[in-house]
């Protein structure tokens, strides 16, 4: 009988992710320790920025899951992010005073985008739409939602105490009502408030990112992950093996929307702000760039590239609009040197070096051992 910790590691490792060696996990834990202690040696502004980068990484992971693993490119991933953000804000503004927490708002921020994804996914995948049609349809959905939200400045566009606010962004309907709340978890008096500018919020987001990352690593290396990959490689062939690929695509699309919605919720709480510009072309393309440059077929690569490119964008933002241009050039460069992503390519190189030292054999053995 194997010890339980090695079974957990075995379930997190597999051919669908890079970094299955002890070396990788030790390195990952070191990075995590550095990240946990970050607020003790960084400035307040840097911590706030780091929270934002972690939220972006969540959004990137959501696209990585459907695009990198299931071959569904969506150019409208930011729409789930924003719908989640708006849903959190609307429910939060309405309930923060009476309930004293944002538990329901948080759930709304996840459920609303999942419902949207379920409807869209049903329309697309059960009609066997694929490839570029899905990508463009999702972009159009995002743009239409943005278009709608832009013209909601009129006070009649209010849901309870929350005014959608058009180009002013989501806000309370009257001055007496509360604004978009902080994440407030717990019941009654026993609540924890996570101010978006605090180290506590940073740790919360970091913990969620780690959990989502580990959860996805387990998922993509499970049987479900195999079927995702098979759909990515050849969905029609996969169907002829008896898998209902429509259901596979719909389910992964909804899961991805849940993660994107969670990210959007955290973003809205982070800045207590959500705005229709989030639905426009630039944010949607930005996610694609983060994922493509890092390596869409590997979760860890996507986090690395999102943090690196997000940080670069912020550094470049002081020079005006140049940042998207630079990121576009980086994307072109990345596609030329490493079609499956720069970080993944580097990771594979490091993996080969590590494998030369013998730990590769364990991985193969672990895989052949017939994990689930």
């Amino acid at each position, binding site marked *: 009988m194997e010890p339980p910790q090695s079974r957990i590691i075995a379930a997190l490792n597999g*051919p669908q992710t890079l970094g299955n060696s002890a070396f990788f996990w030790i390195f990952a834990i070191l990075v995590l320790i550095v990240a946990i202690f970050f607020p003790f040696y960084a400035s307040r502004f840097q911590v706030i920025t780091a929270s934002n980068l972690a939220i972006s990484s969540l959004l990137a992971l959501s696209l990585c899951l459907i695009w990198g693993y299931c071959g569904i490119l969506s150019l409208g991933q930011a729409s789930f992010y924003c719908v989640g953000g708006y849903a959190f804000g609307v429910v939060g503004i309405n309930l923060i005073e009476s309930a004293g927490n944002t538990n329901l708002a948080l759930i709304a921020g996840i459920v609303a985008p999942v419902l949207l994804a379920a409807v869209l996914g049903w329309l697309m995948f059960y009609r066997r739409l694929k490839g570029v049609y899905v990508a463009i349809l999702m972009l159009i959905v995002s743009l239409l939602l943005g278009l709608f939200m832009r013209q909601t400045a009129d006070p009649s566009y209010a849901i309870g105490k929350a005014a959608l606010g058009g180009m002013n962004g989501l806000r309370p309907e009257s001055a007496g009502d509360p604004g978009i709340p902080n994440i407030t978890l717990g019941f009654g008096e026993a609540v924890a408030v996570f101010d978006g500018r605090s180290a506590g919020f940073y740790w919360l987001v970091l913990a969620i990112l780690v959990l989502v990352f580990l959860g996805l690593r387990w998922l993509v290396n499970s*049987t479900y992950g*195999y*079927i995702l*990959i*098979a759909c990515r*490689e*050849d969905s*029609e*062939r*996969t*169907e*002829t*093996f*008896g*898998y*209902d*690929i429509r259901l596979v695509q719909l389910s992964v699309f909804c899961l991805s929307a849940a993660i994107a919605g969670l990210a959007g919720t955290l973003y809205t709480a982070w800045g207590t702000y959500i705005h229709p510009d989030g639905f426009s072309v630039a944010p949607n393309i930005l996610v694609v760039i983060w994922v493509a440059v890092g390596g869409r077929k590997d979760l860890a690569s996507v986090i690395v590239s999102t943090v690196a490119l997000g940080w670069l964008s912020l550094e470049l933002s002081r020079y005006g609009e140049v940042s998207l241009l630079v990121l576009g050039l980086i994307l072109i460069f990345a596609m030329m040197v490493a079609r499956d992503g720069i970080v993944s390519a580097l990771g594979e190189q490091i993996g080969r070096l590590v494998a030369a030292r013998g730990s590769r054999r364990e991985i*193969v053995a672990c*895989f*052949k*051992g*017939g*994990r*689930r």
Partner: protein
Amino acid sequence: MQASTLERVVPGVVADVILDVRNVTKHYGGIRALDGLSLQVVRSEIHCVLGPNGAGKSTFFKMLMGTERPTSGSIHYDGRDVTRLQAFERARLGLSVKFQNLRTFGDLTVFQNLFIPLRRTCGPSEIPDRVSEILRQVRLPGVENRLVRHLSHGQQQWLAIAMSVASRPRLLLLDEPTAGLSAEETERTAEIIHEVNSEGMTVVVIEHDMGFIRSLKARTSVLHYGRLFAQGSFDEIAANEHVRQIYLGTE
């Protein structure tokens, strides 16, 4: 009625029919790929389908597997009308296909390629044993961890066959299983087909290679312009003057 005697099935005799294709038509725009095709396959037989290029053979398979729908007509499998069923539903009823272009998963290993068809019916702990068993059956032992795109064409052809028999289907459709194979490899492919057939699988094979069809000793249907042109034992077909004409293009 015993399957072995069914090579001599004559019209009007009620046989144990596993697949009954009734008057199937498929239009692609103005082109009629299938034009009222009717054909029966008897349980446990090997059945060859041949015909010149463009006769509708591959379209026929797509209709059978359900990756495309006929414009009109119906397909009955094991006494059940499956015309409206999705491909995955037909697969679950026991149909399986190897497409003409192999459609293996090139970027995955052999083990992973077989994992996908096996996992639907097997528990994860049985899979490694089943994989080595199937690989032995298709004469590819020990290649579990090779990337599929690094295999030779012949090996990929056998892997594709292995993937389609992995789920132990009742009706196996093989579209050109010897395309691009050497004479020796073709012979081994015929052995593999006889082996899975002897386990009880009904096999329908699309082929061009006459020597190969002869070695299968199978009942043969000839398609021409999307219709059933002739049917009989291979020797009867080979001796048929009209079949020769459509193949050689002489009038």
